């Protein structure tokens, strides 16, 4: 297990040099999420392959160090995962990635990107199912924690 300082270095590295931080024009699904009260905003983009895997993931956003580092970490982590694998992730995943201190102190910030990515997966599944059944499910483009 890493010590607190090592986890901090990971968070700051992802905050300052975010991976996968870009808009994705050909995403299978995109979803905005956020904690408007503290100014944390994230939009997650997912390109999903026909066999139900995350082919590409990216994000855009602004906010505190932990919420934005979370965007980078999560989009990096979930590429190659199946949709079920993404849905099975939880708070423990973030503890493994950025340490217990940061998650406990700022749980909503730490899980914002993960929660948004999982909601995007849900939205994709719902839309696909409706499409397969010939029903227009309508777009889902936001997920805000109020």
């Amino acid at each position, binding site marked *: 297990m890493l010590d607190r300082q090592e986890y*901090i270095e990971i*968070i*700051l590295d992802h*905050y*300052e040099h975010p991976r996968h931080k870009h808009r994705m024009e050909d995403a299978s699904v995109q979803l905005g999420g*956020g*904690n*408007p*009260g*503290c100014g*944390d905003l994230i939009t997650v983009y997912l390109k999903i392959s026909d066999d139900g895997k995350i082919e590409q993931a990216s994000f855009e956003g602004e906010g*505190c*160090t*932990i919420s934005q580092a979370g965007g980078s970490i999560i989009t990096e982590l979930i590429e190659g995962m199946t949709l079920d694998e993404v849905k099975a992730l939880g708070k423990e995943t973030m503890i493994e990635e950025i340490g217990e201190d*940061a998650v406990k*102190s*700022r*749980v*909503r910030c730490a899980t914002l990107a993960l929660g948004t990515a999982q909601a995007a997966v849900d939205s994709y599944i719902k839309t696909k199912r409706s499409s397969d059944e010939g029903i227009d499910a309508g777009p889902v483009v936001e997920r805000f*924690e*109020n």
Partner: protein
Amino acid sequence: MSTTVQPDTNPAFAGYAHPEVLVTTQWVADHLDDPNVRILESDEDLLLYELGHIPGAMKLDWETQMQQPVKRDFVDKAGFEKLASERGITNDTTVVFYGDKNNWYATYGFWLFKYYGHDDVRVMDGGRAKWEAEGRPFTREVPKVEPTEYTAKDPDGSIRAFREDVLKHLEQENPALVDVRSPQEYTGELLHAIGYPQEGAQRAGHVKGAVNVPWGTAANEDGTFKAVDELRRLYGEKGITPDKPVIAYCRIGERSSHTWFVLKYLLGYEDVRNYDGSWTEWGSLVGVPNAVGNEPG
């Protein structure tokens, strides 16, 4: 006030009751190497200090350093002395706080230092955002300081209210009690600020009789404090006037420390206390008077 570190005489502060507690970013820039000044950063964002801070500044984290880990309370007197000593602060040091989000936690630190009787504490107006907007330097270098001998005074009970004090306060005919949380928390729609976990109290709403003046309304968009006339109007029109004893509260006493600072030091109210038990405590107390909705109740 310290006799060795002159106050910031910026005319923008002249209208405030105690202009000596504010300094500008320029004043801080001019005192970076002043051995009688210790700059402390206190943020809501857990890792901003690590990302870069004003050269020479040290971190004071509200959660892990100002609070006791087991008992719900601030550090005790010995804990405060240790905290000050580890930051190279003596009883004569001029301590300057700054932080993110309108100096939210900077004023929390200011309150704690006043609680333990530190003489010369100041706040950098505009906080971290203003320093950054002006393109001033940040560093990741953490200063190494020699521990000092620091002797704290006994806690100043005149700036802190406990639940018994609030109950007694409510016995007055028109108690001046200001709830500085968001309107949604005040009305009872939410238990916590938007975007934070909805936890911490058994009931939503506000202390019966409290008026709502959200803490952030005391700040301009650039994080500086509003002019004295605006502040006077903001609180006065809600009945929070200098002739009355005032108690401020929020969820855990951090946002209300900002309002406490404004009322006591910028507007010069004599008797202002911060109820740090706040809604997390009050909203779970059995049998106390609560209200929901837009009216004080």
